[in-house]
């Protein structure tokens, strides 16, 4: 059910979803055949929520996450079908970005559809909000969304930061790509200026500067303005770092990644991701590579920033307990498919897919007695040209012949809770599996 309370006025039918994935299917060719890495995955991310995407290594959750930024490895991968739509936000018209009730104090609200200016038309499915098809967006347009409207935090900050550039260099790039006009403004160059200085500084402020530009800009007449621009850039970077509670951000700016601790690096990544105040943040296992104590702090930070900015988050993780702590809703993926999706409390209270159940039993809690930790038997199936069947076949303790011959669809079993399993959706079949009945 869509939550309509935050519906911004002025738009005919503002969606409560910021992005939705429909039938996303990604294949990888291998020597033995086509690997169905992501298989008709569908879900949506609601405005302002944190959606957890959980599953074990190789279940396709990272590929799914990357599809939002067109970072799928294509080639060799093949995008077989599916769409990822996104509703970008723009500065709130009512308060000019300072934050008001209309925009829930975030200063931003869904951008109006360019073809109907918010009235609702075929283009925007009548929602009146700008709708972008991310997977098929041309390079120059996806580029403007990346890092600005949708940002990503990577699993290992040690690998995701370029080892040979300083923190400042790397963070600056976000501003240079997306905040060129503001930087030029700080240097006293208006959008109408066309002089040599404006051109040179314009190139500098958008990373199109060459060595001759640099030389000219280092000479006296242009130097002052250049320094103004660089100062503004530096301040922006420091401010972004400060947001993540890094002490002494101005010192960190000149450091190299390897000089920082893992936690600090991830803070830098987060600062980089949130620098442009994105509408959607893809966090791909952001704490996996960190120490446990650091993990908790980073998690708190993400949670906190998300609360403050009302950013929507897709939180990808294999760690159920983490997901439980941070997410509003959870989608469980198994072998390239979403097998269960729903509100966090429901899923954890009432796991309805045998796989989710297995996972939850595999998580030790304080109540787990020694020797009672359960492992799911068997191994993840090979996804090479799989037959139409439930993917959990072979590991499922409740499987029936039906499970091996037909593909269960995701179906709602209760409010805010959908599962793809014949236990809940036997469609009248005679040999429907049941939790009460163990096959082996």
């Amino acid at each position: 059910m869509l939550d309509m309370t935050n519906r911004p006025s002025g738009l005919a039918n503002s969606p409560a979803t910021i992005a939705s994935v429909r039938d996303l299917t990604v294949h990888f060719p291998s020597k033995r055949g086509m690997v169905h890495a992501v298989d008709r995955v569908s879900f949506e991310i609601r405005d302002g929520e944190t959606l957890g995407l959980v599953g074990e290594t190789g279940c396709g959750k990272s590929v799914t996450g990357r599809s939002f930024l067109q970072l799928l490895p294509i080639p060799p991968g093949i995008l077989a079908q599916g769409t990822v739509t996104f509703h970008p936000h723009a500065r709130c018209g009512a308060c000019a970005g300072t934050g008001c009730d209309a925009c829930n104090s975030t200063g931003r609200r869904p951008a109006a559809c360019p073809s109907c200016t918010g009235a609702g038309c075929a283009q925007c499915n009548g929602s009146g909000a700008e709708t972008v098809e991310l997977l098929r967006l041309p390079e120059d347009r996806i580029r403007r969304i990346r890092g600005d409207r949708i940002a990503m935090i990577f699993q290992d900050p040690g690998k995701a930061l370029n080892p040979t550039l300083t923190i400042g260099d790397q963070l600056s790039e976000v501003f240079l790509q997306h905040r060129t006009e503001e930087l030029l403004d700080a240097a006293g160059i208006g959008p109408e200026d066309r002089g040599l200085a404006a051109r040179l500084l314009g190139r500098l402020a958008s990373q199109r500067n060459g060595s001759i530009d640099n030389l000219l800009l280092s000479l006296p007449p242009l130097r002052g303005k250049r320094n103004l621009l660089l100062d503004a850039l530096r301040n922006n970077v420091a401010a972004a770092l400060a947001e993540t509670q890094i002490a002494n951000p101005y010192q960190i700016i000149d450091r190299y990644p390897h000089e920082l601790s893992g936690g600090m690096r991830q803070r830098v990544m987060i600062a980089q991701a949130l620098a442009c105040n994105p509408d959607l943040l893809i966090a791909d296992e952001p704490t996996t590579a960190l120490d446990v104590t650091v993990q908790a702090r980073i998690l708190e930070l993400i949670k906190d920033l998300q609360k403050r900015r009302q950013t929507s988050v897709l939180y990808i993780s294999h760690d159920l307990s983490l997901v439980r702590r941070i997410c509003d809703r959870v989608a469980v993926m198994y072998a390239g498919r979403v097998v269960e999706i729903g509100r966090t409390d429901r899923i954890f209270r009432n796991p309805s897919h045998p796989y989710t159940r297995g996972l939850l039993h595999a998580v030790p809690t304080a109540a787990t007695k020694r020797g009672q930790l359960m492992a799911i038997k068997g191994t993840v199936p090979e996804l090479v040209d799989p037959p139409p069947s439930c993917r959990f076949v072979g590991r499922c303790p409740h499987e029936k012949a039906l499970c091996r011959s037909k593909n269960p669809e995701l179906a709602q079993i209760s409010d805010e809770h959908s599962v793809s399993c014949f236990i809940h959706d036997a469609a009248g079949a005679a040999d429907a599996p049941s939790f009460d009945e163990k096959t082996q």
Partner: protein
Amino acid sequence: MQLRDYVIRRLLVLPFLIIGVSMIVFALTRVGGSPIGIYLSHEMTPAQVAEIEARFHLDKSLPVQYFYWARGVLQGDFGWSGVSVAPVAEVFPKKLAATLELSVASGIVAVVMGLWLGTYAGARRNRPADHITRVVAVTGASMPNFWLAILLLIIFWAQLGWMPIGRSTPEIIALVPTRTGLYTIDALLAGNLVAFGDALWHLILPAITLGYGATAIIARMMRSALVEELQLDYVDAARAKGLPERLVLKKHARRNALIPTVTVIGLTFGFLLQGTVSVEIIFRWPGIGKWMADSVLRGDQATLMTYVLFTSIVFLVLNLIVDVIYANLDRRVELGK
């Protein structure tokens, strides 16, 4: 370890390595017999032979001979070149300038072409451009350079008559005063564009021949380094920031792929120096490579020793420079490990 300490430590070891090299080479050349042959003619009497032997201290024991040689070297006396009939120290700088000009020119060819090819192929992995580049690279590594030199010579000199051989047209270069010994530079310094064009024209074929193998090595390294870098997370992270592909490649991946490639480039200069031997022979380039080959064939040990010593020092210093540059480029490197 601090960069400076590391460099100092390496510099301190350097002389010992050089001494080691000189001893090995000295012992080696003498194992093959006395260097006296070069000074002899067929009609000499034993007394005359003995006289020559004494003149060059060849009648002493091996360590004593080494001592004489080493003392001479320290005083700037590298012995008498039988091939050039002049003191080695006198001929060497001139020959070196010729070789330097050639190897630097081919080095430039190799670095520019190698980096470009490697980047081009690495960024288009497994596409036709990549395959072609790999073919170029692997043929470059397997092509004997004397063979390539002969083929180019036949086509462009003997058949088409487009390219000259030698180092310059004597009548033209004679008008240029010698400052650096590098004809192209000297010609430019003298403002003589005709001489510059002439020197450059002579340089092209040998530089290409010599540079081809090195291009292959650099392109191969650059390609694989770039392919490796492009698979790393930070590249996707850069894309996720919204950087255009051009900048992802230029500012991130290529920059980092250059780090291992720089190592190879440094060592490639040594490779070029070796390659000069056959290329200089064929293109009649009066450098130390050809000199060395002549010396080897005629048993001119003083020249041989000087050459090996020199190239070894160049190798050692290049290695040091490469390590330092590497450390400077890649902040993660811990020196001394």
